[in-house]
């Protein structure tokens, strides 16, 4: 993992490193050409959001309580990374993506491929 991601992983050990690393590599490749935002921070934020929403098991009952809280921490950390390193349209696009996925989960609709949705946010945010 990159230096920025190592520093940002404290307290998130419960999520497991491997899934975040795999997601991070995909997002880094997509974010490399962002002009108005920091690619490292955006990619890590996206990886944290993806992992958090998976841990929350949107639409499924009885997620593990500690998982819920650690995933909340991952989401909040992603929010801080985006507040620091992403331009306004990208911040808004990430938030809207989470809103759509969460609404689908609340309605028990299939939430689809979270990773693909977030990659789309980065791609359109160039």
């Amino acid at each position: 993992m990159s230096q920025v991601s190592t520093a940002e992983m404290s307290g998130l050990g419960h999520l497991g490193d491997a899934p975040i690393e795999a997601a991070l590599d995909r997002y880094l490749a997509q974010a490399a050409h962002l002009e108005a935002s920091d690619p490292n921070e955006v990619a890590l934020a996206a990886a944290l959001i993806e992992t958090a929403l998976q841990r929350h098991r949107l639409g499924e009952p009885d997620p593990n309580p500690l998982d819920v809280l650690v995933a909340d921490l991952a989401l909040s950390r992603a929010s801080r990374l985006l507040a620091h390193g992403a331009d306004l349209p990208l911040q808004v696009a990430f938030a809207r993506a989470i809103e759509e996925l969460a609404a689908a989960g609340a309605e028990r609709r299939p939430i689809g491929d979270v990773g693909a949705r977030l990659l789309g946010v980065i791609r359109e945010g160039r």
Partner: protein
Amino acid sequence: MISSRRLRFGTESPTEFLDITGHIQGQVDSAGLRQGRVFLQSMHTTLGLLVNENEPLLLGDLQSMLDRLVPTSIAYRHDDFPARAGIGPDEPANGHAHCRQALLQPSVTALVENGRLVLGRWQSIFAVELDGPRAREIAVQLDGEFAPEAEASRDGPTWIDSDLRLLDLELRRQLEVDPEAVGSPMRGLVQAGGKRLRPRLVLLCSRLAGQPDRLKSVLLAAAIELIHNATLVHDDYVDESPFRHGVPTVAAREGSARAVAVGDYYFAKATRIIAELGNRTVTQIVAEALEAICRAQIDDLTLRGSYPGDRDSYLGVVGGKTASLLAASCAAGASLAGAAPELVTRMARYGELLGIAFQMADDVIDFSRESGKPMGQDVRQRTLSLPLIYATDDPVVGPRMRALLDGPLPESDVQEVVALVQDCGALERVQDEARSLAEAAVAELDGLAHLNGSSPDPTLWPDLHSRLESIARGAAARTY
């Protein structure tokens, strides 16, 4: 002069005696009534009023009397639904509750002299729930002579009243446009009550400097209230709490899947609203507070293994869970108004001190007979609580406290823990600490007028100072 209000609260049990004396005195205080009368009227046919002694065994006797005179085990014609016309699908079988209410009173009048309720030494005013748990409402009218400053404030709404009304409209607007699956549960939570302390701080601090943008301030205040409620939705799921503000929690009513999704939705929506304000500093302030809240929630859950913990752990958790968003509300409001960094930092410090004092007062209320809430809820739910920590450290009662808290805590043990905490001086110690923190918060305000080049707007500062000072001292002194 007459001032009309509503007292809203939630109940948690089928039958419950809620001591509302403190709430009614609070209404007298806030209205500024000096001499006169307070009229109370239950707005329900299964909620009675009563003036009697708040003594737990007597309350048990009263409960037994109701059980004996109007037992639940016999048939009531009111519960014969096929024989009744025009009843809804959710009609409760509560004939006994209506009959019990006939033994109580639907209204009570209390006299007020020199700003204090005129009550005998052993008299308390109770709202008696007979068909709980429910959201309840009591109409309150205050009639008589009011303090001059209270008369002035009733002549017309102040700017903060007007901003708070805008806030309510904005919250309603935001929740109306959301998908029903998330909007409906959040509307239930937001409308159930809450003190709106965080948005109030945003609105006040956004007047500290420059030219405040009223609409942006209201949007920021609404977003912070949504963040607060989103964290509560997840917190209630993790804590398995059945009620919040007297109504079932989102998790209890709608299930865990819906609760997690609702929390995520409003976390995202609130951060989007804030991002759309276009002020990166404000966005960062709130994002950092969110992270602090989440870290503290994990710590809180982890620390339950070593319940009741120690003072340092307590301050760490409270600093994150409660104080960080209050500090961010102040700092973000000030920053939105273009306040200088030093002023923003001071306001964050004010909010942090206020937040810790607020939580300490909350802990004390859990052991208070006058709060109107069931005592010992923190003990039953093993919630971090400073009076419990101090009582456990006490050389006299500490060993017994530890033995009780290490066990399964049946109701008799909870009552013993409450009594030990009440008797060992822990509550007074925590109250003193809360008051000291509130004074330290006020001291932060006192220094602001002398900041070199970054002082608050001098035309608004006296009014803002007075309101912020009142919030800090009120948070530490509150009894409900």
